[in-house]
């Protein structure tokens, strides 16, 4: 297939995934801000999402104060922010439109309908009060996109590039979310196990659709280290780092990647053979930072070997 086509498909999938994860991040942060909390101010709750997924300097300049209203506007609706939900959905649709021929028409119509509805919603106005519903809509739109992809696309390279984009982006997003939230949530003292803890850890799990999985697997109270294990090492949890790499490996094999396959293999080995004790000994933050870096290097290699169009 054309390199340019592969590029558009890959980025279309990345942008959809990014929009979904942004919605998850906003949603969980919003839920955390809803319960009375003496430990944290509105600012300490709303600052981390901006640092994960935005640009602190740009936010400070355009908005200043970290509040539900401001961060929601910045991360969801602001088209000056290229990572906002509206911007990423616009980009996804623009990429799709450029290669609408390369996908089944049902898939294109699905993504086009999503974009049309987004703009209808924007015309009607989206306020702070719509945050929960809006994020839910973004998430279910992404589910729908994934479903139509699975249900209609021929299993050829085009399909593989769509999957590839989704997996690389998802790995990045899960790692970032866990990195920031984990440290925010870890209690300063030993007083764990309270109602607030339960609420917040369960919100984090819900943000990555893993709350029920946690309960099913551990059948026990929510322990921070288990949350980390679940999101990093469990291969059977679809949004975990291990699961993302499990998905990436065969795709790169099918597409005939050399260096990209090697990079992914290294990352995969770390997750496949890694033990949580060792990761904690090294430091979870250090482990995740390195993962994020290596994963983005993998993304750059994919771009270099398959997608860019050298003259």
């Amino acid at each position: 297939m054309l390199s340019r086509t592969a590029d558009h498909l890959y980025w279309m999938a990345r942008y959809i995934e990014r929009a979904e994860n942004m919605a998850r991040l906003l949603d969980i942060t919003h839920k955390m801000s809803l319960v009375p909390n003496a430990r944290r101010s509105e600012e300490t709750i709303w600052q981390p999402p901006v640092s994960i997924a935005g640009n602190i300097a740009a936010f400070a300049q355009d908005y200043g104060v970290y509040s539900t209203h401001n961060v929601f506007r910045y991360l969801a609706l602001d088209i000056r922010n290229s990572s906002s939900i509206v911007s990423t959905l616009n980009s996804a649709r623009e990429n799709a439109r450029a290669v609408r021929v390369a996908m089944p028409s049902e898939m294109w119509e699905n993504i086009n309908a999503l974009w049309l509805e987004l703009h209808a919603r924007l015309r009607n106005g989206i306020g702070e009060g719509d945050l929960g519903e809006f994020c839910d809509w973004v998430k279910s739109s992404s589910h729908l996109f994934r479903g139509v992809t699975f249900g209609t696309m021929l299993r050829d390279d085009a399909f593989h590039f769509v999957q590839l984009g989704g997996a690389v982006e998802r790995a990045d997003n899960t790692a970032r979310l866990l990195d920031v939230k984990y440290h925010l949530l870890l209690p300063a003292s030993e007083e764990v196990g309270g109602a607030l803890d339960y609420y917040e850890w369960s919100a984090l799990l819900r943000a990555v659709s893993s709350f029920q999985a946690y309960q099913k697997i551990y059948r026990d109270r929510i322990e921070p280290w288990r949350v980390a294990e679940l999101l990093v090492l469990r291969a059977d949890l679809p949004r975990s780092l291990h699961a993302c790499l499990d998905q990436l490996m065969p795709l790169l094999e099918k597409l005939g990647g050399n260096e990209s396959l090697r990079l992914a293999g290294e990352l995969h080995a770390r997750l496949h053979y890694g033990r949580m004790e060792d990761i904690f000994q090294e430091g979870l933050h250090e482990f995740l930072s390195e993962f994020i870096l290596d994963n983005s290097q993998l993304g750059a290699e994919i771009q270099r070997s398959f997608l860019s169009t050298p003259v």
Partner: protein
Amino acid sequence: MSPKHYYNEMVDPQDRVRSLYAGTAEWLSGIRPEQLEEKRAEAEILFRRVGITFNVYGEEAGAERLIPFDIMPRILSACEWQTISKGAIQRVRALNAFLWDIYHEREIIRAGIVPESVLTNPMYRPEMIGVDVPGGIYAHIAGIDIVRTGENQFHVLEDNLRTPSGVSYMLENRKMMMRLFPELFHRHPIAPVEHYPQVLLDNLRAVAPPGVRNPTVVLLTPGAYNSAYFEHAFLAQQMGIELVEGQDLFVRDDAVFMRTTGGSRRVDVIYRRLDDDFVDPLAFRPDSMLGVPGLISVYRNGGVSLANAIGTGVADDKAIYTYVPEMVKFYLGESPVLENVPTYRLARQDDLAYVLEHLSELVVKEVQGSGGYGMLVGPAASKAMLSDFRARILDKPENYIAQPTLALSTCPTLVEQGIAPRHVDLRPFVLSGKTVSLVPGALTRVAMKEGSLVVNSSQGGGTKDTWILEARTPC
């Protein structure tokens, strides 16, 4: 002219429904006006969802527009269609013969039928002199614009031989009508048009460079921001071929390749939807970012085929148009099935004098204008516009032609006030390659404004599904 002077395709001057429209009239009588409006709105939503839109240059993203779709069908009988298709095929055969001739022997000039000045026409491409294109075919896809002025009176208004567009609307309008009004399809024996992309692909494959056994065909588009991008994407998808941009192609060792994830792959036939000027910055406009450097050199050597060929514009120029009936006689030895609209060539003294005297009754067009731009509609023009145009004509008379204001036929059309007659034209698409043929269907364009005779979409015109009813008895 009062409405009675126009040929109304649905009702006769005594207000009786013509037999062709009897089924539609009966169906209409059983449907409430609100239902029609609902269907119209539904069609609009569906078109938006499918993304059958065109971009408006200079407006922000999201300002994609729909071409108005009229839910009232236009109906033609099998016999009417026989005349139209025979005439259109004949015309395209003559035009292809003409194109071969003026890039080779120039017999028609030597015979004194077409003046030698055609060789200095800016659309004449000296690069094509002596180049042998496969099958001698230049206009693989031709859109022949036809107007109707009476019961059996069809005239060709214009030949479009460069990159004619609109066929996707013929196909999508049909799909939409089947979805909105399946009951109408039970009542009428409507000839199918859905195989158009297959016929197109067969023809494109047939004009591959000699010796290529399993040719790779691609569609070259200027990109997603082009106003006809939907059509490019649609046709590529329907034919199952790659939709490429200039940046996806490159020239090496006297061949054209596309860049793919698995390396480079040879391309044999390019259905290009890019004007001559833009296809190769080395041969034509050096500032073109859309084309492929070196393409024309490969093309001239026969390493790749282009559809349509380079240099077809010289044959659809409005000044050359006047000679087409004579071309039919000269090359085919036949008499034209479809006549031209009477046309004055202002390069001729007599014609110029007549036109200047009757300017307010005539339509004056620029020889190379298209899309309804650069045109004077005498009866609708103000005094100032008339005198302005008079000055422009006197400055360069050879740049203009004039035609009488045509009594374009009307078809019932759903407008705000309900169903009312509006003027229409017809664009069938003639395909050449393996054979010369057309699918039984065409694009009908309709002027949505009352009294307007301008059907171009750039001027607010809409489209209709066009039905050719299959014959129960031979014509």
